[in-house]
């Protein structure tokens, strides 16, 4: 096997003389050169994390047109770093310089605006025009060649949106979500992250640095982002004015990137957002006291077990009406809690969770979809499923099964464009409900995350994101695999069902297991079709694996001699790595029919022979009788001859 360490995406070689770069969120990037164009050296290969799929819309598009102050992917593919560890790499232009990181001293106002705000706003404007978001703006992901140079926004496509962002840089309704479930969001969420970045640069320190993410989130919910982050921070007035808009709770109140290109206008823009009402008397949810509607929604979503009694008894509604003095909100909540249930069993867990979710949404329309304490954005469910821990994954499974996204979106009148996700919800539920090894949660996860690597243990360390990489990876993994076990498992089956076209996967989806001979033949047929479709070249490892694990077997062939001949041919085909040829030998209907006919003829011949054998054994008595009769007749004949002789003799004398 050739030494392919350091080769990524087929054409790129990692430069061993340069150290890898650590990007925001811990991602690593390796300087690479293009073997097709050695002169083009300023390239990097970003190594993605297997559990965090790259953003498909951006990665797969691979736009050729450069966007200002942005690093865009050019190519992608599997590869190995210099130590031989395989991974999924995305190639992009090299970064202009180091990340600006956390400043040791406050930046000057002019430098912030000229070097950060204006280029970042231009980049966001370009992204907005393409219907994209960045969702990874923070000081560790802003790069520049030298002081006074404009920054470039670093890679944002190598992981799900905002999945690597600290809670500090996310608005509360995003920070509340699972990191991988924050969804694409809107450009206003990028403006928020840019605002926090400006705050850090302008103040020279990180706000709320001593708090963890949960505490930061709670502080933002209690005080509002602007107050929570800027209190006691020394800021120039210009930056303060900008941040008041950029850190607004409501994304509609934040300035657009286009407006940010003119900072004077942006600072002068005032959206008269009504300050949130605060109650004199707190409502207790467990150990926590809430004073505002947003805090109530946050607390109810966080602790659904405590929330349901408050909602069912009307305590929350009473508090909203009497203590907070917001009868409209109380009425909205009443509409949810008193609504006749469509559930067959109103008191079941799903009904309770649905009521809590809709109540949270009614109290705070900005809140994410909260289910059993787990929060996600509707467009982040797919990526959240891929990276969620088991408990959260179970809650997300319930969300999909209940199609909770639909009532959630119906309740959120602020985002009518998201109603298009209704079809997604139905597809998700259908995939989740599909049975067999190629169905269920794995089918859903691979189906909704086109850039998620297959996590089958059979693949060992090989990274497979595209269906085209699957067969070569299995072929290589076969060398170290236990070949008595099948070369397919539920992960690979679900992966194929999700990524291959339906003409290949129709039989696979109908499979209930890999145990029976018919099922094994179906798997062999599947691999043969993939081989024919993808043309990966000879696959001796995988073919041998299929042969030794019994997926390419002639055991049910009736004719011993013909089977012996075919087995030799089958072994030769496996050695040559031709799965299609193996299938042709194993699954040849005409030859099978001839074999069956031969077996039937043999059975008939056996019956004839057995009858002859029985006849021989049964004819002994008859033979004895015939022999005796013959002996007696012979003796009688001889006697008669003697008698005749005597008569003649007497007559002559």
């Amino acid at each position, binding site marked *: 096997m050739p030494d392919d360490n350091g080769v990524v995406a087929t054409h790129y070689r990692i430069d061993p003389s340069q150290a890898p770069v650590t990007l925001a969120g811990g991602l690593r990037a390796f300087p690479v050169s293009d073997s097709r164009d050695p002169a083009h050296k300023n390239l990097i290969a970003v190594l993605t994390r297997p559990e965090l799929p790259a953003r498909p819309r951006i990665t797969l598009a691979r736009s050729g047109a450069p966007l200002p102050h942005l690093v865009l992917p050019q190519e992608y593919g599997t590869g190995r770093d210099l130590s031989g560890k395989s991974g999924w790499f995305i190639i992009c232009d090299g970064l202009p310089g180091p990340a600006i990181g956390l400043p040791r001293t406050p930046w000057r106002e002019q430098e912030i605006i000229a070097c950060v705000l204006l280029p970042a706003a231009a980049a966001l404007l370009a992204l907005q025009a393409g219907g994209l978001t960045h969702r990874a703006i923070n000081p560790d992901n802003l790069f520049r060649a030298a002081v006074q140079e404009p920054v470039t926004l670093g890679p944002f496509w190598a992981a799900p949106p905002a999945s690597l962002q600290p809670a500090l840089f996310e608005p509360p309704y995003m920070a509340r979500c699972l990191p991988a479930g924050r969804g694409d969001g809107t450009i206003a969420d990028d403006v928020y992250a840019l605002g926090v970045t400006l705050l850090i640069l302008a103040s020279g320190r990180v706000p709320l640095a001593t708090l963890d993410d949960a505490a930061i989130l709670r502080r933002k919910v209690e005080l509002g982002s602007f107050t929570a982050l800027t209190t006691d921070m020394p800021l120039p007035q210009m930056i303060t004015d900008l941040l008041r808009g950029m850190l607004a709770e409501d994304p509609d109140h934040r300035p657009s990137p286009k407006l940010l290109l003119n900072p004077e206008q942006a600072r002068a823009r005032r959206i008269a957002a009504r300050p949130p009402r605060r109650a004199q008397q707190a409502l207790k949810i467990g150990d926590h006291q809430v004073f505002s509607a947003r805090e109530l929604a946050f607390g109810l979503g966080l602790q659904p077990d405590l929330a349901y009694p408050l909602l069912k008894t009307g305590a929350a509604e009473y508090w909203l009406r009497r203590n907070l003095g917001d009868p409209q909100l109380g009425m909205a909540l009443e509409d949810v809690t008193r609504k006749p249930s469509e559930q067959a069993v109103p008191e079941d867990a799903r009904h309770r969770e649905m009521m809590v979710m809709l109540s949270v949404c009614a109290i705070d329309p900005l809140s994410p979809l909260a289910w059993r304490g787990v929060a996600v954005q509707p467009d982040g469910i797919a990526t959240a499923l891929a990276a969620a821990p088991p408990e959260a994954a179970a809650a997300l499974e319930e969300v999909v099964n209940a199609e909770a996204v639909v009532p959630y979106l119906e309740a959120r009148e602020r985002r009518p464009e998201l109603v298009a996700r209704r079809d997604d919800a139905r597809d998700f539920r259908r995939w989740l409900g599909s049975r067999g090894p190629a169905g269920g949660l794995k089918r859903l996860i691979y189906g909704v995350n086109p850039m998620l690597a297959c996590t089958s243990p059979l693949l060992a360390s090989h990274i497979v994101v595209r269906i085209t990489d699957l067969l070569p990876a299995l072929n290589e993994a076969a060398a170290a695999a236990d070949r008595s076990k099948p070369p397919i498992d539920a992960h690979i089956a679900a992966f194929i069902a999700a990524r291959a076209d339906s003409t290949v996967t129709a039989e696979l989806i109908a499979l209930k297991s890999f145990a029976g001979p018919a099922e094994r033949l179906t798997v062999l047929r599947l691999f043969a079709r993939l081989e024919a479709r993808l043309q990966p070249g000879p696959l001796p490892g995988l073919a041998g694996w299929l042969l030794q694990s019994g997926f390419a077997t002639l055991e049910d062939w009736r004719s011993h001699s013909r089977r012996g001949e075919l087995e030799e041919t089958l072994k030769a085909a496996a050695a040559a790595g031709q799965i299609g040829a193996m299938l042709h030998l194993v699954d040849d209907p005409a030859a099978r029919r001839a074999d069956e006919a031969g077996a039937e003829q043999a059975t008939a011949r056996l019956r004839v022979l057995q009858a002859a054998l029985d006849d021989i054994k049964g004819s002994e008595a008859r033979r004895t009788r015939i022999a005796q009769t013959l*002996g007696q007749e012979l003796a009688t004949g*001889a006697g008669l001859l003697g008698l005749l002789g*005597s008569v003649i003799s007497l007559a002559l004398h």
Partner: protein
Amino acid sequence: MAAPGTPARSKASAMWLQGLACGALLAFAPAMALLLGVLLAPAIACFAADMEQGRGATRSVAIACVAGALSPAWHLWLAGNAFGVAITLLCDPLTLVLAWGAGACAWALCQVVPALLQSLWSVRETLRTHKIEAEMKRIREEWHLEE
């Protein structure tokens, strides 16, 4: 009770007729009866010993003995059925050897021929059985068929 005309009645009638014939022979030709009684003694003994249906051996022995006794009986008849001639004939060893030898030969044929035939047939059937079993084994192995 057997119905009229049945084999049992016919057999009884035949026995009665045979008895009548023997009685008549004893009454009208006692010398002939003596000669035939002695010369056909092997047939009579075989008749007594042969329990097989149809008494094929008895028939063969009787015919052979009759062939051997025909010439002495003819001479006795020509000699006027005299007891002295009958005794003389019976004292001639050749007469007894011929009659009894013929009966013995017939009896021997009845015993030896079936044994020989059975041996030959047994060898032939054994060879055929082996051939069939070999073919059955080959078919079972070729086609994986259970016995």
